[in-house]
């Protein structure tokens, strides 16, 4: 999967879970500061991403995933 494909997949999840406009989702965006995803919604995003991309994202990793790009890199490395 390319980084763009992962970003697009994350954008779909973010729209479903938190109502984020897919056009706003880009690698440089922070989940909390830019996309307004709160901590409970972030849990939903992680679980949905695990399912969509067939990866495991342990809770202690989630705190390191500040931006969409962080998440894309983690998922790309796992899958």
């Amino acid at each position, binding site marked *: 999967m390319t980084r763009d494909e992962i970003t697009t997949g994350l954008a779909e999840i973010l729209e479903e879970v938190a109502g984020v406009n897919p056009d706003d989702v880009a690698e440089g965006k922070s989940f909390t500061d830019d996309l307004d995803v709160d901590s409970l919604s972030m849990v*939903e995003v992680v679980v949905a991403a695990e399912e969509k991309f067939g990866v495991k994202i342990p809770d202690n990793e989630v705190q390191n995933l500040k931006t969409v790009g962080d998440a894309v890199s983690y998922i790309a490395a796992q899958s």
Partner: protein
Amino acid sequence: MSRPDVVVTGLGATTPLGGDVASTWDAMLAGRSGVSALTQEWAEQLPVRIAAQLAVEPSEVLDRVRLRRLDRSEAIAIIAAQQAWADAGLAGSDLDGERLAVSVGSGIGGATTLLAQDDILEASGPRRVSPHTIPMLMPNGPAAWVGLELGAKAGVHSVASACATGAEAIALGLDIIRSGRADVVVAGGTEAVIHPLPIAGFSSMRAMSTRNDDPERASRPWDRGRDGFVLGEGAGIVVLERAEHAAARGARVYARLAGAGITSDAYDIVQPHAEGEGAIRAIAKAIADADVAKRDIVHVNAHATSTPIGDMLEIGGLHKALGDHPVLSATKSMTGHLLGAAGALESIATILAIRDSVVPPTINLDDPDPGLTLDVAAHKARHMEIPAALNNAFGFGGHNVALVFARP
């Protein structure tokens, strides 16, 4: 310091009769039933297959993402509170949040969330359980969400007294304003538990009507053919305000919340006291608290749920505590029984009866029980001057609440 008067300045509701107060009230005055057949697949195996479902789905009002994190009872509490807030002219106001409290309860709470998440737990494991589960099912959820929505910082309270909840939440609001803890209290009740488990539970108690083939005629308080209550869902919210505060901002006043009476039976967990002793005391306390002459209380919106025993006990209690002059309504004949929201919705009906000088009808009262010795506006609304009126609400657990509303 003299006790402050408390007035009602805003109303909001979403009910089986309409998505707001105006449409609900119009339907009530027209004598329409909000009860219908449950056509969901899960209803097929149930002994009770009728209910009074919301006329307007929350998804028509709140956006999808917001609804993901709200129990249905929370969503409709927010919707009704937004309406009441706007109706009171407080939307966009600079009201000090530290002078605003919330008192909103539910009889059963987020039971449908609990059950749905348990299904997910069983099917997919704990990691799939929504992180919103706890705030969706916690009994203070509706009050907390309303408080968040409106910026209430003087306390959010969640009364739980089964089918007396909505009325008791309003009574608590009265206390809060009288004690000086807030100038404005957003108060009421919410309930949304049309789901097989609560229906099976109530029907195992033999408390519900099984008139499945005739839904609109199933809720028939005081009628000889009554066979139990019909479950309804909805929310009712009122804005209570210190009278001087309302006057200072030039608010429109619907009615005065003149007094409240709260008692408990200490008799049985579900059966009402055999002589209605606790109910009589609640009504008497409310009248005394209101400082309104009994003869001026000419209308009662009764608890009257359409159960064989409860309906008649209330009649006896009203005779003893109030006399034989009031004209009664059982609006549950149209709305079904909204449990924790019932006392709030019926307070709204009582307030509008005073404002519009009209007693709403009691439908389906075709063959009155011989024990019905008080006057009822059967089938049709009745126009009459109403200086003051009483609303009763009683709940499993032996809760009795009576509220007296009066012309401002």
